[in-house]
């Protein structure tokens, strides 16, 4: 029982960089487009936080982490629409381009293409004094950027669920003609959706980079793909996406705990959540297929 608060604490720490990216993936799903660039956008956010933060401090770094991936996502979608290019391939291109550019800029700015540690950019724990509370302490001991990332995720979720933009985004995904008849440009809605998606991924990236106060190449470690899986596992719904993100965060936190307790190889334990999630995806698909047959 004593281990439960630690497990929940880890769960929240893993959820903070994952949930915003998952919501970002959901935004573009609403407009009927699969954004597979989530992984690259998270990296763009993480690198922007460290690169800009090293010059202007963590607050401006966090802002840059939101805006740079948003701009990348918006421009990539604009290119996809105007050049009538395949958004799937564009996403792949972004995923390849971002780490390469980050490495080149890192070499120029920090003098290394590897790990770049910047003093003062590791996020503090704003509510740490309340972390000792019984039962609910795990809610308060997180890093400030984790809270900020989760706030970004919630705000975007609210925008999707409660604002005209959310309604238009869904209409853009379901029936573009209807949107045109209402006098709304579906391309513009899609562009905003991509920008929001980038912004959400940027929050994820900032949370990751701020947790260690450093840029580590490929530090997203597949979180963008997991976020995409969470969107599908959650049935492309807000609640479901958050729940699926929480499930994966739980698996990761259990893997971390198991490593600490058992001394089993970290890599093997880190592999488990991916295999388990793949099985969950397959079982979910089997269930859906069975329902349709019945």
């Amino acid at each position, binding site marked *: 029982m004593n281990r439960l608060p630690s497990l929940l604490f880890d769960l929240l720490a893993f959820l903070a960089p994952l949930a915003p990216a998952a919501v970002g993936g959901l935004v573009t799903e609403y407009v009927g487009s699969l954004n597979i660039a989530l992984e690259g956008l998270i990296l763009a956010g993480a690198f922007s936080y460290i690169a800009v933060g090293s010059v202007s401090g963590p607050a401006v770094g966090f802002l840059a982490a939101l805006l740079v991936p948003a701009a990348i996502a918006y421009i990539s979608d604009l290119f996809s629409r105007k050049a009538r290019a395949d958004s799937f391939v564009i996403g792949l291109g972004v995923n390849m381009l971002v780490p390469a550019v980050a490495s080149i800029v890192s070499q120029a700015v920090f003098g290394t*293409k590897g790990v770049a540690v910047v003093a003062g950019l590791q996020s503090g724990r704003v509510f740490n004094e309340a972390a000792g509370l019984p039962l609910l302490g795990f809610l308060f001991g997180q890093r400030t950027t984790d809270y900020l990332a989760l706030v970004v995720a919630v705000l975007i979720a609210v925008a999707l669920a409660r604002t005209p933009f959310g309604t238009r985004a869904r209409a853009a995904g379901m029936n573009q003609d209807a949107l045109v008849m209402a006098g709304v440009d579906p391309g513009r809605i899609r562009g905003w959706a991509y920008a929001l998606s980038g912004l959400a991924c940027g929050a994820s990236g900032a949370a990751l980079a701020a947790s260690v106060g450093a840029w580590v190449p490929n530090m997203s470690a597949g979180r963008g793909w997991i976020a995409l899986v969470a969107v599908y596992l959650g049935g492309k719904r807000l609640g479901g996406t958050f729940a699926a993100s929480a499930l994966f965060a739980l698996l990761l936190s259990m893997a971390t705990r198991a490593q600490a307790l058992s001394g089993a190889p970290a890599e093997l334990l880190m*592999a488990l959540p991916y295999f388990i999630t793949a099985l969950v995806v*397959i079982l979910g698909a089997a269930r859906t297929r069975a329902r349709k047959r019945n």
Partner: protein
Amino acid sequence: MKFPIAYRTVKDSGASSALPRMSAALSTAVVLAAIAAALLSSEPAIALRAFFIAPFLNTPSFLSMLELSAPLALCALGVIVTFRAGHYSLGGEGQAYAGSFAAAAAGYAGFIGTGTTATIAALVAGATAGAVVAALPAAGKRFAGADVLLTSILVSQGAIFVVDWAIGGPLRDQTGNLIAMPALDPGMLLPRLAPPSTLTLAPFVAVVFCLLAALYFDRTRSGAAHDLYGRNPRFAGLQGYDVQRLAWLPIIVAGLLHGLAGAFMVLGAKGTALRGMSGGIGWSAIGVALVAGSRPAAVPVAALLFAWLDSGARQAAVLSDLPPDAGLAIKALVILVVSARPAWSAFRTLKVRLSRRSHGGNRGGIQS
């Protein structure tokens, strides 16, 4: 008022004209490489020379580049096999990495002996490992209709962790600083055809596989069924094709090809399995497939283009101060440019739009 555009999906990309795509890719790569050398290096002349001329300067350099293109071509062929069946498998990276590991493990401590038999056994082990990593997504698609894109990337990521552990843990060569398995017995490696270059039989095998795949897609009923299934599975089923087999077999074949590519890397230039040795080959292969217009016959040339970008960037990084990742950035930009519709098509669309407007306004509907 603006009208909605029928956005292209990856299904529209199918097999298309390879020549314009490759011309666009080559010219883009050349321009970008020149820009990169000019902007990112303090010695642009040396960087340019290293990028453009060094890989072709002598026969060994060129032949080594040819060797580099072989695994890429096999992986790209795997991508084409899955994409043309409408399965968007993104698990190539893990499949190739598992193939490398299995090939090295098969020869580890020489327990399968040396010589041609051992080499073939290692190649088979590599291909099988790739297929094993592809098995779960294939089964998921066949029996549950699970999205291959999601399951393949998940299983691939998991496999990468497992192989990382095996190479860096129990099978690591403890005598060196490199995180790698012990070097294989030279007797079981593929023979070097033109030393000092690293050229082996691998590029020739890749070309044969590409030609066989081209024959399969263009000349056989099964190939036609494969393509038809990729475009419209229900229609393919109505035509009496074995759609259940097409739901899983292309994914396994792609796994075999990726695994074989990984094995060739070990048995060719590397000589052992190193941690992280796949180095993004699964992602580059998708770019190669795109540049080749999903046409197997064009794959060797497209793979050679990407191998040149890798080789040129590496040489430029050694001989000048051009960042080594410039090659990766150029590859990504080439993919972006090639994915766009050719300019002439855009002009044609514009012409049609203007013509419609001048004949009584826009009729509405979705533009094709």
